[in-house]
């Protein structure tokens, strides 16, 4: 049988897949790379068919399930939940419980924050610095909701709190949009994937950028001057989950995969590929050595406690955010 994974770019390293296939010779692993939006879009188009295991972030499950009915509840008894970091597990469970059924368990977690070249931008600190004229033409960001949220925090708002009051949220968004449009002249380009971000950063075309921590760690390996910078207002934290699509056909294999990657030795392999932390107990120690250095260079304990976990997105917010992003994109500047 085939296990069809719908997952993030680096969440299925070849080494691990081969190891898994060796262990379960009757299972073939087929991987489709995707991102949060596409995962939902794909599953929506297929009505939840076509894949056996998806890995959306913890905040993108609830609304999508309500709206499109694309996932199925998990049987937690088939998962070795005991190895998981309880706080993360509970958090995800809380976020993804619908009518008493749990839909997801955590897998990897990481943050979105900033990255800077220490040599060229030594005092780079917060989201707002991306728009600092000092770095004109030398910063970058990804035009997605993260930057909206980050900027909102930087402007002293709490967007997650405003989810309850969408009018309020719209106000925040408008403010953020103005700020980002104004900032447009300052940035070199919007990056779209880890690839172009790495290229720009490594080549020195930019000195600082919004980033995923994992990308920053990777670059740290190439150039020790490039470090992850948790913003003053707190890095935004996401947890990528294991979730079963509604019409998946290989649930057993999916559970097998989940348990397989939760094993400590496999966590290390996985983390070296993803650059993120697994949501298992003692994850930091399971990191490959060079990543450990990078993480230590990036985070203090204070930073960790300052993390802002993404909150569940209520229906409608995606639309509002989308429009705001379009507005920013279409506005002329720079």
């Amino acid at each position, binding site marked *: 049988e085939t296990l069809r994974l719908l997952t993030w770019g680096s969440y299925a390293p070849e080494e691990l897949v081969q190891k898994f296939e060796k262990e379960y010779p009757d299972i073939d692993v087929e991987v489709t790379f995707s991102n949060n*939006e*596409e995962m*939902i*879009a794909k599953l*929506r188009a297929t009505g939840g068919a076509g894949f056996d295991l998806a890995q959306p972030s913890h905040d993108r499950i609830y609304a*999508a399930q*309500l*709206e*499109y*009915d694309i996932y199925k509840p998990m049987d937690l008894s088939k998962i070795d939940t005991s190895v998981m970091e309880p706080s993360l597990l509970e958090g995800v469970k809380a976020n993804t419980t619908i009518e008493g059924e749990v839909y997801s368990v955590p897998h990897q977690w990481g943050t979105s924050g900033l990255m800077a070249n220490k040599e060229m931008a030594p005092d780079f600190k917060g989201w707002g610095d991306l728009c600092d004229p000092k770095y004109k033409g030398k910063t970058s960001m990804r*035009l997605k909701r993260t930057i909206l949220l980050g900027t909102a925090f930087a402007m002293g708002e709490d967007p997650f709190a405003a989810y309850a009051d969408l009018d309020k949220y719209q106000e925040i968004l408008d403010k953020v949009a103005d700020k980002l449009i104004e900032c*447009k002249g300052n*940035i*070199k*380009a*919007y990056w*779209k994937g880890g690839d172009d971000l790495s*290229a720009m950063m490594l*080549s*020195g*075309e930019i000195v600082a950028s919004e980033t995923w921590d994992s990308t920053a760690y990777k670059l740290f390996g190439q150039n020790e001057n490039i470090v992850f910078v948790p913003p003053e207002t707190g890095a935004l934290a996401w947890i990528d989950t294991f979730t079963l699509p509604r019409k998946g056909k290989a649930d057993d294999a999916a559970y097998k995969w989940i348990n397989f990657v939760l094993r400590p030795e496999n966590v290390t392999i996985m983390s070296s590929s993803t650059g993120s932390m697994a949501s298992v107990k003692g994850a930091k120690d399971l990191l490959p050595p060079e990543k450990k250095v990078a993480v230590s260079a990036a985070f203090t304990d204070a930073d960790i406690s300052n993390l802002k976990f993404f909150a569940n997105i209520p*229906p409608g917010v*995606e*639309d509002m955010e*989308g*429009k705001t992003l*379009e*507005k920013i*994109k*279409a*506005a*002329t*500047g*720079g």
Partner: protein
Amino acid sequence: MQQKDIKRLTMLLLFAPFALWILLLILLPHIGMVILSLREKVAPRVYEFGFGNYIDFAMEPIYWNTLLRTGSMALLVTALALLIGFPIAYYIAKVAGFRTRGALFLLCLIPLWVSDLIRAFGWILLLRETGVISTFLQWSGAIDGPIEFLYNDATVVVGLVYTVILFMIVPLVSTLDGMDNSMIEAGYNLGGNGFTVLRRIIVPYAMPGIVSGCIVVFMLTAGSYLTPILLGGKNSSWFTEQIYDQFITRFNWESGAAFGFLLLAFTSLVIWLGLKLSGQTLANTVAKS
């Protein structure tokens, strides 16, 4: 009598694949798309008939600005492709020797066999700040510091011209090829200079090819996705991207369908206008190539 029945049966058998194709893959999907675009989302899993998606489009300047921007850039690309491509087509069809002609035509086609993605990828490698061209220019001393050629509208235009120019050259070569050389010679013989011959004889003669090339190029450009996404800068939004966003990142199929329909209607309108202005018909241009 019997033979007539057989003929009718064959006709039907021949007609069936055509009808199925057009009906199931072109007509019904588009009707479906229009119907979908007329649904308004009022609550999760609840929809109503209405023009909301179109009204949204009309009310939101971002959307129609993007559409207009896409349209006008597509026109620009079309015009550039024509200007750049025509002399090439003319060279291939009329100036080059018999053997070179075939070779040049082949050369022209080669990029066609490589996907959009690879072509855009190639451009990125060439144009980025640390790319080949910038490095070369620095090395040769023409510029002091690196220059970023990527991520602006001009790059998008160049990239688009590059992707579509073959579709301009091919119909042009085939019409110009069909043009008797003696027609040009007659133009000179009767006293015309190079410019008159070009304007009064060659261009009017090549008109069906020009229009056909322009239509295909315009459509391809307006509908292109990869090139503007990959080469475009922070200001360059493209309407297909907008559609993609509606579908994929905002899960808003209804307005995505509306956008799709609008793109189709808009490009069709432009082409219709173009045909009217040039006095050509679809039948004697695209259908001929």
